[in-house]
């Protein structure tokens, strides 16, 4: 589905990624974990076209996407959320979600200026689909509120709705559980699994909260200092001595 092949990236002489290699299979939830500075967000930025890799490439289905601009990658059906919630403050919740449908939007400016038939039809449809998505997420009652007035976790759900409204093939989530309490994390894990089950979307999940990783992911890739150090089912990976050494810490296995 999504193949990351030998990706290297450096900033100002600083090697951030060094031959990263993994792939997301169709319909799976893949966790990507690792210590801070391991290059997790960087790899996500490479996949979504924000950074261009120095070497290697990313294939999405049969096409190479590592030279495409972000908006084009998004319109191919590959969406993401960000570590810090990036809702647009000037837009209401439902409008934020409607933004997720932009690539499908085809009406021209003249139609928009005079509220022509195509524009109205598209707007209505987009609003309907966005409301459906919000309802599915349980966020419909906030539809007309400004994004900022929501809590952190709620904003995250809106952001996921925005990424999911176009029913993409791949969803990339960058630390969605940051700042959530344990019961909320459990809810989020359920949500993520049901997204996969309902929409058939493959999910790449970057996360530090192991509770979420363990309960949501089918498989886990572990990164450290710009390379992949382990790849496998969660139970297996968390027992890997290299992973415990570099990321989880010696006490981890005993605790869980």
């Amino acid at each position, binding site marked *: 589905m999504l193949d990351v092949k030998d990706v290297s990236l450096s*900033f*100002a002489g600083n090697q951030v990624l060094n031959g990263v290699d993994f792939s997301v299979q169709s319909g799976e939830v893949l966790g990507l974990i690792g210590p801070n500075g391991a290059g997790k967000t960087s790899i996500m930025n490479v996949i979504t076209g*924000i950074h261009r890799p120095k070497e290697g490439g990313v294939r999405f289905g049969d096409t190479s996407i590592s030279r495409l601009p972000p908006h084009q990658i998004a319109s191919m059906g590959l969406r993401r959320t960000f570590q810090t919630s990036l809702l647009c403050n000037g837009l209401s919740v439902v409008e934020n979600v409607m933004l997720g449908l932009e690539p499908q939007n085809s009406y021209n400016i003249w139609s928009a200026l005079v509220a022509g038939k195509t524009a109205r039809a598209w707007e209505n449809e987009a609003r309907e689909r966005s409301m459906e998505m919000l309802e599915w997420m349980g966020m419909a009652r906030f539809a007309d509120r400004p994004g900022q007035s929501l809590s952190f976790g709620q904003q995250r759900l809106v952001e996921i709705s925005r990424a999911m409204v176009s029913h993409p093939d791949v969803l990339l989530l960058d630390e969605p559980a940051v700042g959530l309490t344990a019961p909320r994390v459990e809810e989020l894990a359920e949500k993520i699994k049901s997204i996969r089950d309902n929409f058939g979307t493959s999910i790449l999940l970057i996360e530090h909260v192991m509770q979420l990783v363990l309960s949501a992911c089918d498989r886990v890739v572990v990164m450290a200092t710009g390379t992949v150090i382990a790849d496998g089912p969660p139970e297996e990976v968390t027992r890997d001595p290299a992973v415990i050494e570099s990321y989880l810490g010696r006490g981890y296995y005993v605790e869980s």
Partner: protein
Amino acid sequence: MLSVLLTSGIANGLLYGLIALGVVVLSKAANAVNFSQGDLMAVGGFVSYSVISAAGLGPAAAIVAVLVVSVVAGIASFLILRPLMKTEHVMSLLIATIGLSFLVKGLIRLIWGGQGDYLAVPPLVQGPPLILFGGNVIIPLQYLVMMAGAAVIILLFAAFFRFTRLGLFMRSVADNPRAAQIVGIPTQLVLCSAMVLSITVTAIAGFLLAPATLIFPDMGFALFLKGFAAAIIGGINSLPGAIVGGILLGVCEVMVSGYVSSSAQELSAFVLIFVALIFFPRGIFGARKTRSV
């Protein structure tokens, strides 16, 4: 002809460089741009006019007066702009300083407006120009004073940033404001001193410039724009870059004027600003700064 043009370009460029220093100090410590800087430079010129021409005192008194006025103006600007001196308010700050620029210009006109259209400040030193290399290089004494003043200010700056605690604080606030705050650096004090320092150096530039030109309330903005361009060319966060950028701009202007056409002189500065911003936004000495998303 070339050598004469070069000297005058360098002398003018040093002046741009001084204004650029003010731009850089503020940008380095507070990540801000102050549009009223040029007008405060004009204030420096007018204060030295009042002290030297009107009150008949010497240049030393003028320096003291300019320093006092610029420190007061700096603290006042800081107090007014304090709520906006955060990275996320950069554009609001810019607009507010445009307002300040209007305000300062209006005040200049109110105070000095009736005293004539263009005011002259007598030269700090009298005497024939310095003639070097058999007349190939002619440097008026005022330019020498300007160069010396610029050199002193640059040295003071370098020492300040290298050896004083406040200078160190400023550098760290510029690098990472949040971290600086956490480790207990008095951020507000640093921002305030950056503002004061920026305005002081600009006002001193005004004091140095005043005898070399005629002063009028609207003189500030064009000079600020040139100073800003110099700062960009040199790399917005580099102190030596500001001076080098200023000299480059000054030389470029005078060369275009001398060898192309004097009517293209003004245009050359704008073209240089534009090209520098678009193609070399980090400037010559600019530190590489990865852009945060």
